[in-house]
């Protein structure tokens, strides 16, 4: 009996995968567990392994092709058996059965449906303000909804438990205290993916983070001026930075690169990923060809991508192909941080908040200025400090005098 190899569901948000390089060709002998083809999804690069021993008989999807989850990718069989190809995606019941077995059942208490935590808008607002993870709370509202009362009760309990005596650290350093009231919550696929990718990046790419403080008075003025004239979209600082970074990368192509085993790819296209925080994790939709787009187009695109990211409606290729990433934590009152590179990209720019500070100007006077801290993490395998600093300096230059961009 031939075995159909189908596109696996590798994450909650995954609806399709893109076929990468074929590692085995038709006619090759494969063993169970052998990787046969590379795939990329919205969040990660992976491989499909053969489920059986046999011969790769038919390749049903070509490199670059998008295949829906459970769509047919290949057929493995014996060397001489007759193969019939059924490209239909298996019926819904079959898929959901698998899902239920793998994901829904263990999480049923907190996630009654589709992995979503039911909480009232007010409860969500309060929890987010107090930094409480809703997943740790059991809802008492209608249909198990977490309501305001539940969040407040949880907070009270936590405070109580924190004021209890803490066991001596020396006794058992590896010991994780587990109380009855604690909630054990399996990692979601999204958290698993984020965890895996962040660990890989931190582990494989030697990170260096450099920071600089920028006077953004002129950028603020530019933004106000543009927003005054243009009521259609409101430019954010992120939008402006996407354009500035893209312009800078055009000038310093060595920072618009990826590393792959023993070679570096210098990308022709400049595609800027914009980190968007979702309730369940982080996602990085990509603004393609950002250097060729204007502020307005970028702003519209970023808003559209972010909005659809929040609704889980992004297309696969809107999440892939990034060559550089920006992460703006300014809204959260963060000054500076050490962002982790979104591999295989070579660098990421962390953006801090804008804050008024006294600075000394050219005339040695102390004057107020709006300052922002930029943190650039780069992969030391690709670039050295001098090159990265050059990029940072260029972006800084644009922020301090946006007219520079057009030179």
């Amino acid at each position: 009996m031939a075995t159909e190899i189908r596109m696996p569901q590798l994450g909650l948000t995954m609806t399709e995968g893109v076929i990468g390089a074929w590692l085995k060709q038709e006619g090759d002998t494969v063993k169970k567990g052998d990787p046969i083809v590379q795939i990329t999804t919205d969040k990660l690069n992976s491989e499909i392994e053969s489920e059986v021993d046999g011969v790769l008989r038919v390749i049903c999807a070509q490199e670059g092709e998008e295949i829906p989850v459970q769509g047919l990718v290949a057929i493995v069989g014996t060397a001489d058996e007759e193969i019939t190809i059924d490209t239909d995606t298996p019926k819904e019941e079959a898929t959901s059965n698998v899902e239920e077995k793998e994901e829904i059942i263990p999480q049923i208490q907190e996630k009654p449906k589709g992995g979503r935590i039911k909480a009232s808008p007010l409860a969500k607002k309060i929890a987010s303000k107090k930094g409480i993870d809703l997943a740790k709370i059991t809802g008492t509202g209608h249909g198990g909804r977490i309501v305001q009362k539940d969040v407040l009760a949880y907070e009270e309990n936590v405070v109580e438990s924190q004021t209890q005596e803490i066991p001596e650290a020396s006794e058992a350093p590896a010991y994780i205290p587990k109380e009855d009231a604690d909630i054990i919550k399996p990692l979601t696929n999204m958290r698993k993916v984020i965890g895996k990718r962040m660990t890989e990046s931190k582990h494989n790419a030697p990170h260096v983070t450099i920071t600089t403080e920028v006077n953004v008075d002129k950028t603020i003025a530019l933004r106000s001026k543009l927003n005054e004239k243009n009521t259609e979209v409101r430019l954010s600082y992120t939008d402006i930075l996407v354009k500035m970074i893209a312009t800078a990368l055009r000038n310093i192509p060595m920072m618009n690169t990826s590393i792959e085993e023993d070679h570096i790819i210098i990308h022709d296209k400049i595609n800027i990923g914009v980190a968007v925080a979702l309730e369940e994790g982080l996602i990085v939709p990509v603004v393609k060809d950002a250097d060729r787009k204007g502020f307005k187009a970028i702003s519209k695109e970023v808003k559209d991508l972010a909005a659809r990211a929040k609704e889980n409606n992004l297309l696969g290729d809107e999440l892939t192909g990034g060559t550089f990433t920006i992460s703006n934590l300014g809204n959260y009152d963060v000054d500076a941080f050490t962002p982790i590179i979104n591999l295989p990209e070579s660098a990421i720019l962390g953006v801090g908040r804008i804050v008024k500070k006294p600075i000394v100007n050219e005339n040695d006077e102390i004057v107020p200025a709006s300052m922002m801290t930029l943190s650039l993490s780069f992969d030391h395998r690709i670039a050295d400090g001098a090159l990265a600093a050059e990029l940072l300096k260029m972006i800084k230059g644009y922020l301090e005098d946006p007219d520079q961009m057009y030179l």
Partner: protein
Amino acid sequence: MRTLSTSKAIREALHEEMQRDENVIVVGEDLGKMGNPFGITLGFLDEFGPNRVIETPICESGFTGMAVGAAMRGVRPVVELMYVDFIGVAMDPVMNQAAKMRYMTGGQVNIPMVVRAPMGAGRRNAGQHSQCLETLFTNIPGLKVVAPSTAADAKGLLKASIRDEDPVIFLEHKLLYAAKGEIPEGEHIIPIGEADVKREGKDVTIITWSRQVFFALEAAKELEKDGIDVEVIDLRSLVPLDWETIKKSVSKTHNVVVVQEGNKRSGFAGEISSQIMEELFDELDSPVERVAGLNVVPPFSPPLEDAFFPNPNDIVKAVKKAVNFKL
């Protein structure tokens, strides 16, 4: 303070305004010797004469349209529909003439006209004499819509409506005509567009108007026994809407029940619910509940009619659902 029935309070408002301003006239059926079926204009014909008390033939379209023409000339007609249900034959002058005239003429013309109309179920008047139709009017730009509950509110709001430069639909609940309430002495005017918190509470807000205000207050008393502290907002005016009062209350209680007597589908309760969802989403601790009449024709037979429109018990149930109250 004096105690008056709501019908007497309405009569007093009309009487005071007719005495104050000779441009105020009343127009409608049976306003003369009969003084209207509820005694609202009793004695007016003798006092103000046939030029101010226009007792019309039975032709709602004709006399409502006529009132629009008079209003364009600066008269302040108070038109009476014997039942709001009769708007069916007088909709064009209200919807296409009175409501639109100012806008269509670029602000040249005002229509300072009031359409008073008794509404509501509970008198076994069956399908064509028992409806609450505020939704028809709130959907029409250019109309103001008022629906008071108490005698004092009815008086104060009718006076404000007569003095208003815009067409005002003034909805009176038939079952409230006999309800008595205290009326402040002297000039008593309540501006259109101000809601009234009829009961303060901290757990849940009931937003309603007209007769259902009393039902909501009854329900609140019942809910008190279970320790649920209910706030009751009497909107009094539906257009313009007193959003500030709604916002303040919802931001305090975080749970909302909107109650209307008229049938549920496409009702004004749905409109309020939507606005709260759009603008106060993060304040909500439960979905906004609606309590409303069934989507049926008002029936005649008492047990059927009683099942048709909401009663205090329906409100109690909805509030308990909103706060997820369990015994």
